[in-house]
């Protein structure tokens, strides 16, 4: 664990010393503030649209940060040859993968806190209320969803040498799951065999990231979801993250470094 935490600390330092996060945060803030300054049709409920847009931007930024940071970890270690002095020390490849995951995931968590704090400030300034439980659930489930994304991108980073191709494939896959994942079973029903079975297998195999999207709770100030469901979703995300990390380790442990 010590080695994984040491690697993770370097990944977190990398995130806050690079410009990516700051650029995305400033973009989100500027767009949200500009939208907030406008008033369409004197609609009292326009704040809900503002919150929705802000949350959408936060989701996009978080995905870009998570995939961008994770996809380059192992390839850049190889390209810059920093993996050699690192693995020449008493650290295993499994600990390196675990450290990279922890670092990326914690870095995403820190970025999310900053984004949600900004969102909270905007929300309170307009609505004068802050349903803490719903906000916490939205942040918590979002963070765990990013855990699955980070683990998936790390697996991609040991399979594909180029970070750009890995990032593109991961983003397409994630967007596909978020937009189409919940409809796959309906598609399967309408298909003939054997395609129906194939689509059903895909439906049950892919991580349903859309389950973690509870933006409506905070947009419409709804009551929080049942905490047991929240705990179940956490275990669901943890299981997928562990599966992807295990697969990444299986590939990386035998991979020649030279």
């Amino acid at each position, binding site marked *: 664990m*010590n*080695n994984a935490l*040491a690697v993770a*600390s*370097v990944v977190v*330092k*990398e995130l806050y*010393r*690079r410009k990516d996060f700051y650029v995305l945060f400033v973009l989100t803030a500027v767009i949200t503030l500009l939208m907030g300054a406008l008033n369409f049709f004197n609609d009292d409920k326009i704040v809900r649209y503002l919150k929705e847009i802000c949350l959408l931007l936060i989701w996009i930024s978080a995905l870009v940060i998570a995939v961008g940071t994770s996809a380059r970890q192992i390839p850049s270690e190889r390209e*810059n*040859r*920093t993996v*050699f*002095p*690192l*693995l*020449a*020390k*008493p*650290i*295993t490849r499994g600990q390196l993968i675990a450290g990279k995951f922890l670092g990326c995931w914690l870095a995403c968590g820190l970025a999310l806190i900053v984004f949600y704090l900004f969102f909270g400030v905007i929300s309170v300034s307009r609505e004068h209320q802050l349903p803490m439980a719903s906000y916490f659930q939205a942040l918590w489930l979002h963070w765990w969803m990013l855990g699955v994304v980070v683990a998936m991108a790390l697996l991609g980073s040991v399979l594909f040498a180029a970070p750009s191709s890995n990032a593109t494939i991961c983003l397409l896959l994630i967007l596909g799951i978020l937009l189409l994942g919940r409809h796959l079973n309906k598609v399967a029903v309408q298909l003939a065999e054997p395609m129906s079975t194939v689509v059903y297998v895909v439906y049950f195999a892919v991580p349903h990231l859309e389950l973690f999207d509870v933006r409506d709770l905070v947009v419409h100030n709804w009551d929080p979801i049942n905490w047991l469901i929240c705990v179940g979703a956490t275990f669901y995300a943890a299981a997928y993250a562990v599966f992807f990390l295990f697969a990444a380790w299986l590939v990386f442990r035998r991979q*020649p*470094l*030279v």
Partner: protein
Amino acid sequence: MDQANLFGMEPILKIEDLVVEYRTREFGQRVRIAVNRLSLEVFPGEVFGFLGPNGAGKTTTMNVLLGFVPATRGAAYVFNVNVRDPIARQRIGYLPELTYYYKFLTAEELLRFYARIFRIPRAEVGPRVDEVLKLVELDAARKRPIKTYSKGMQQRVGLAQALINNPDLLILDEPTSGLDPIGRMKVREIIQRLKQTGKTVFFSSHELGEVETVCDRVAILYQGELKAIGRVSELVEKYECNLEQAFLKVVGYNSER
């Protein structure tokens, strides 16, 4: 003659009948032998030069010693532990050829990171970092990000990270490669200082003058095979010429062609 008997002590590094084969990516997957039945021993306190032209198998051998590449046949041991076991690397310092360290870290942060991996007690990390940064003359630049360092300074950061755990065995892969004469001289001085403190150094180099100055023994590798091994003075005496000419004779290069 058995080298252990020759020195009367246990070797710190032992390579036994090592064979490393690569599958090429050409059609039909031809096998290329990078190292062929290499056996050698390095003893405590020695500075051992590992010589050979490009592609001789020096870096591949070092990669096996560090666990980066698996041996096809044979075995290698460091401190009597098989190199496949990560714990074998606890007492090793390694400087790769031409490495770029995490550019967003400072030299001090980099060394603290590596110190953590070696589980050096927190109270000892500060003094150890100070010591190695002074040794490699980077004390004044310790708070600057590595991306602002010159090539020579980066190579010295590499040496500093190789020394952070106060290793008993240093494996240096062409430590002076790409450095200007002053940079080379500084690295050579550091190796000599390490030798005086009783460290064992196993290093590869193309700089035969440097090897002649600092090495106790050398091994010459050519096309993956060990062609000669012994004290520098013995090789010079045997071939009746300087080390450079002896090296050329061993690898079969005829300058009159």
